[in-house]
C-alpha cells in the first residue's frame, strides 16, 4: 500500500491533501471536522492585524456557474479575510494544533505592507506553535483595494521584500501564495524564491464576474443592486493552475522551490496531476465547499490505489515525473504526424466530427460513403488537430493515430522523417537571418 505521508518544507502531514485558506478553515469547529474526516492539513483562513475586525457583506458572498445538472463548475467569492477577532483565532489555532499534532496546520496572513506589521503578527502566530505561515498575496477582491492581497502579489519587488521580512522575523517555514492575476507567474515566484521563501503555493483565485442578470441588469447575486468582481476557483480554473504550476516547476530560476498546488482539485486524479508537475502538497477548497469534507476519503484512497497500480511507493516517487515532458512550442517535433481515425464500430453517427471539421477546420471528414451516412477521415486533408476527437460524444471512438509508415498524402512527405523542431526549421526567420 502506497505511503501517502507528506513532508513539505519540514511540515509533516499524513497525506498531501490540505484544505486551502478559505471559509472552511476559518474556525476551530470546521477545522476539527476536517481533521476528523481525514484531511492531512489545513491552511487557516487568513488572519489580519489586531484591531477592529474585518467587515463582510451580509448578502451573497459566493457565486457559481453550473453545468446542466447543477454541477458546480466554478465558484467565486467576495469574502474578505477572517472577520473574527485575532485573539480568538490565535487561541483556537493553538488548541487545534495541540489536539491534532500529526496534522499540518499552516496559518495564512495578510497585513499592511510594512515590516512592523509583519513582524508583529509573526510573533503572535509563532506562539500558537503552528507549523508555518502562508503569505496571502493573492486575493483579488476587497483587500487588494487596500493595498494588500493581489496588490502585493502583482508586484514582484513587494513579494520579495515581504518574503525577506518574514524570513527575518520568524523561524517558521514561509510559504508565499501567488495570485494568477498576472501576466507571467514566474516573476513573482522568482521574487519569492529570491526573498528566501521556503515554498510557493498557487493559484489564488482568478478575477471574475460570474454572470450578469439580464433582468436586473446587474451582476448575478448582487448586493443591493450592485456587484463587484470576485475571485474564481473550482474545476474550471484547473487548466490555468496546471499551466502556472508547470511554468514554475520547469523554471531554472525556481529550481528546487517547493510548490503547494491549488486550483480545482476535485478528485484524487486532479491531485496526482499536480504532484506529477512537481507539487509536494495540494490544497482544496471548492470541492469541500461543494460536497463537504468527506470527499477526502475518495482522494486518499484513489491516490493510493493509483500509486499502487503504478508502483510509486511514496509521494516523492511520483512527484515531478511529468515536468520533463513540458516544453516550449518551439521544441515540439514538427515531423511527428498524427491523423484522426474514426472507429466505425463505436460510431453512433451523430456527425459532430464532420460538421465541426467542415465548418471550422480542414474539411477533412467525409459525411457519407456510397450514399450511406458514414463518417470517415480524409487523410489527404487531415492535419491531426484533434477537434473531431474532442467533440465526439463517444469516448475512444475517434483517436489520433501516429503515422510512421508511408507518405502523408497531405504533404507528400514520408511519415518517418527524423524529429525536427522550429529551431531548425527552414521557415524560421531567425535561422534564415543567421545563415545570411
Amino acid at each position, binding site marked *: 500500500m502506497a505511503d501517502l505521508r507528506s513532508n513539505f518544507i519540514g511540515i509533516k502531514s499524513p497525506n498531501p491533501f490540505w484544505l486551502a485558506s478559505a471559509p472552511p478553515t476559518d474556525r476551530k469547529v470546521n477545522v476539527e471536522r476536517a481533521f476528523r474526516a481525514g484531511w492531512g492539513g489545513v491552511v487557516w483562513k487568513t488572519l489580519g492585524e489586531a484591531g477592529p475586525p474585518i467587515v463582510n457583506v451580509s448578502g451573497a458572498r459566493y457565486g457559481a456557474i453550473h*453545468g*446542466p*445538472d*447543477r454541477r458546480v463548475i466554478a465558484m467565486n467569492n467576495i469574502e474578505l479575510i477572517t472577520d473574527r477577532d485575532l485573539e480568538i483565532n490565535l487561541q483556537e489555532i493553538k488548541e487545534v494544533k495541540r489536539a491534532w499534532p500529526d496534522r499540518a496546520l499552516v496559518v495564512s496572513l495578510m497585513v499592511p505592507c510594512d515590516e512592523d506589521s509583519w513582524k508583529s503578527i509573526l510573533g503572535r502566530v509563532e506562539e500558537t506553535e503552528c507549523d508555518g505561515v502562508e503569505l496571502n498575496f493573492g486575493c483579488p477582491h476587497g483587500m487588494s483595494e487596500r493595498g494588500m492581497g493581489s496588490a502585493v502579489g502583482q508586484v514582484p519587488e513587494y513579494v520579495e521584500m515581504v518574503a525577506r521580512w518574514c524570513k527575518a522575523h520568524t523561524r517558521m517555514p514561509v510559504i508565499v501564495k501567488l495570485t494568477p492575476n498576472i501576466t507571467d507567474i514566474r516573476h513573482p515566484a522568482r521574487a519569492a524564491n529570491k526573498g528566501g521563501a521556503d515554498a510557493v503555493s498557487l493559484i489564488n483565485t482568478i478575477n471574475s464576474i460570474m454572470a450578469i442578470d439580464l433582468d436586473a441588469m446587474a451582476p448575478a447575486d448582487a448586493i443591493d443592486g450592485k456587484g463587484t468582481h470576485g475571485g474564481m476557483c473550482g474545476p474550471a480554473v484547473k487548466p490555468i493552475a496546471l499551466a502556472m504550476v508547470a511554468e514554475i516547476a520547469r523554471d531554472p530560476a525556481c529550481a528546487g522551490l517547493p510548490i503547494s498546488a491549488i486550483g480545482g482539485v476535485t478528485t484524487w486524479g486532479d491531485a496526482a496531476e499536480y504532484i506529477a508537475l512537481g507539487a509536494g502538497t495540494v490544497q482544496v477548497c471548492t470541492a469541500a465547499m461543494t460536497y463537504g469534507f468527506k470527499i477526502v476519503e475518495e482522494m486518499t484512497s484513489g491516490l493510493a490505489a493509483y500509486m499502487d497500480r503504478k508502483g510509486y511507493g511514496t509521494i516523492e516517487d511520483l512527484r515531478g515525473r511529468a515536468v520533463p515532458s513540458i516544453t516550449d512550442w518551439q521544441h515540439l517535433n514538427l515531423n511527428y504526424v498524427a491523423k484522426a481515425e474514426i472507429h466505425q464500430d463505436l460510431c*453512433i*453517427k*451523430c*456527425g*459532430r466530427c*464532420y*460538421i465541426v471539421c467542415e465548418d471550422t477546420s480542414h474539411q477533412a471528414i467525409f*459525411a457519407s460513403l456510397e450514399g450511406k*451516412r458514414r463518417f470517415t477521415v480524409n487523410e489527404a486533408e487531415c492535419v491531426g488537430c484533434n477537434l473531431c476527437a474532442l467533440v465526439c*460524444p*463517444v469516448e475512444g471512438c475517434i483517436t489520433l493515430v501516429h503515422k510512421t509508415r508511408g507518405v502523408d498524402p497531405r504533404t507528400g512527405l514520408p511519415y518517418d522523417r527524423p524529429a525536427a523542431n522550429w529551431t531548425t526549421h527552414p521557415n524560421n526567420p531567425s535561422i534564415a537571418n543567421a545563415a545570411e
Partner: protein
Amino acid sequence: MTIAAHPPGLSDVAPGRLDGATIQSNFADLHPPLTPHEAKVESERCYFCFDPPCQKACPTSIDIPLFIRQIAGGNREGAAKTIFDANIMGGMCARVCPTETLCEEACVREAAEGKPVSIGLLQRYATDAVIEGRQSPYKRGAPTGKRVAIVGAGPAGLACAHALAIAGVETTIFEARGKPGGLNEYGIAAYKTVDRFAAKEAAFILSIGGIEVQYGVALGRDVKLADLRRDYDAVFLAIGLGATNKLGLPKEGELENVVDAVAYIAALRQADDLTTLPVGRRAVVVGGGMTAIDVAVQSKRLGADSVTIVYRRGAEKMKASLFERELAQTSGVVIRNWARPAALEGHAGVFSGAVFEDTHEHEGVLASPGSVFRIEADMLFTGIGQRGTPEALGGAPIEVKDGRIVVDGDRRTSLEGVWAGGDCVVGGEDLTVQAVEDGKQAARSIVAALGVASA
C-alpha cells in the same frame, strides 16, 4: 353502440366500478410534463447532430436539435416557435406521436446507449409554454381574396387552414361533429391528452383568424363536393375514416354489449364524468392496433376486472408499438396472440362470451387448425380497423383505392382543384403527425396553385 347495464349474474356491465378519485388518478397524465430543471438536464443530452436523424424521422421535419438547444438556452417560446413552424400541432404530437418508432428511434443516443433524448417530453415542455390560453404566434396574412373549403376539422384540416391563413387565404371548415380536433378530440386515450388539451390546441390554432368552422355539416349529407368546388377556389378533403370494420360474424349487430371500440372511446372522451360510463366486469377486445390498446387500457382503468386483447397474428405484427403493448400489459391487460373470433354468444340478446379459433400463418396466409377456446365476458370491443367512406364524395370522379383517396406528393387528388390529406388518403400512417404534414403540404400546393404569396 348498444351498451346495457345488467345486474351481476347474467351479464355484468355497470358504471362507477371505481370511485371518482381512483378513476381520476387512473386517467391522469400518462407522461407528466418535465419540470424546468428536468427539461434543462434532458436538453443538454442532445448532441445537436449534423443532418439530424431525428428530424429526418419526423413526418413534419421539425428542427428538433434547434428547438432542444433553444430550451437549453432558456428560450422556451423560441423553441415552441421552431416546432410550430414545422408542425402547428406540435403540442398534441408531443403527446401522441409514437416517438419510439419516429424521432426517438432515430436519435443517435438510442444507438449509443438505448436511451434516446426524450424528444417528445421536451417538445411538450416547449409547446405547453405557448399553447395554454394563448393566441397563435402567427399573423394572418393580408387577405388575398381567395377562399378554400376544407372538409373536416381534424389535424389535417386544421393544419391546412392555419397554413392558408398565414398566406392570406380564407377558409371555411365543414365539420360533421360538434367540436374541432377530429380524433384528437374524439379518439386517443384520455390519459394522453388530459385537461381538454385537444380543445385548447384547436382554439389556439383557430385564433389566427380567417378560419370559419361550420359544425354539424357532413360531406355528402349536408354539403356536396360539387357545390364546394363551385363556390370555393379550392377544396381540401380531410374527412378521416368514417367507418369501422366489422367482424362479420352472426349476431354481431344484434347482441347488446358488442361494441365498436372507436365509438366507445369517443363516448369516453366526451364524458364529463367517467364514473357514469358503463364498462363490463370482464372485457374482451379484438384487434391489434392503437384502438384495441386504447380501449383495453381504458376499460381496465375504468374498473374492469379482466381485459383480454385477442389478436389473430403474432405480437410483432401488431400495429400498436412495443411501448403501447407494454403499457397495456403493465395496466393488467392480457394480450393473446394467434387467435380470431369464430362465434359470438349471448343470452336473451345480451353478449356473454365469444368462441375463438387458434390461428397460424402459412406462407403469409392465416389458417386455423380447428382448435377453439371460449372467453366468457360481459363486453366485446371490436378494434379491427377503420375504413374510408368514399360514398361521401357523391360520385365525384376522384381516384379511390381500398376506400381511401389517392393523392400525389402535393396531396392533389385526381380531380382538379381538390386536395386531400390525413387518414382518408392512401398511404397514410393514420398518425396525427402525418395528417398535420398532409395539411401543411396541401396548403403549400394550394397557395402555389392559386398564385398567391407562398405560405
